[in-house]
């Protein structure tokens, strides 16, 4: 779900440094490592608690692994971009 969210920050920071070139294309250091905090120990809610925190039209990233369906609010992921998660024994990274 490439969303280039950092690009929104980058566009406001024209002083961003080119720190490397990969595959002929520039790499910009826009923010320090970890400045946008990934979620390493995600917690989940379901049922009424889930409805209480979500709007009906809120965009989500949804994934199904085995019997487990899991959703991540994209509004929330705006602030984190990455969730280091585990579903049914499978370690996954949800990225936005």
């Amino acid at each position, binding site marked *: *779900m490439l969303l280039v969210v950092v690009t929104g920050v980058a566009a406001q920071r024209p002083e961003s440094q080119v720190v490397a070139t990969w595959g002929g294309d520039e790499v910009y250091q826009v923010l320090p490592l970890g400045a946008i905090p990934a979620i390493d120990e995600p917690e989940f809610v379901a049922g009424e608690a889930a409805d209480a*925190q979500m709007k009906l039209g809120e*965009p*989500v990233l949804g994934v199904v692994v085995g019997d487990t369906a*899991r*959703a991540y609010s994209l*509004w*929330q992921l705006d602030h984190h971009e990455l969730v280091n998660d585990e579903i049914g024994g499978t370690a996954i990274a949800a990225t936005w």
Partner: protein
Amino acid sequence: MVYARTLGANTYTFQVSGKLWRNSFIMEDRETSTSWSHVTGRALDGPGRGARLRAMPSVQTTWAEWKETHPKTDVLKKSEEVLSSRYEKYFSDPDRMGLFRAQWLTEKMPGKTLIWGAAFGTHAIAVTDDALDKGGEVRAELGGTPVEIERGPDGGVRAFTGEEREEIPVTRAFWFAWSSFYPNTQVVDQ
């Protein structure tokens, strides 16, 4: 995008590196400090360079549609109230794009057009909502392999390839960003 974090004997924990490459962010794992593209799952720099994470199918839809079709779903708990996107202005401004070749291929369509993109092998396809909603699905052929892209009952868009209808990951992306990764992408926009 959703990736398996385990590759061989290693399970990685990713951080947001703060680096941008081809208009998208770079992940850095804590274990080896390798840099990974979150668009392709490819390790671009560091000890793991050349490795590739396995992408897993996922969908982007609304909470209402997702819970309708997956009533037992759980959802990432919010530790604080988040009621909208912090990037709304960025999303809606047609002129604000990335740092990198923002004009790339924008003669094909405006850079801030949201597309559904799928890639396999050396091939890629980008489909607009207009094209998808017109016929309910898009059928195409990439390098001799049939591809079907369709919107499912949960509102999410999925892609399937070949006779076996193998599901391949679909990404929601701005055209300017997708095309900087996949400049030769086949476009279906009507």
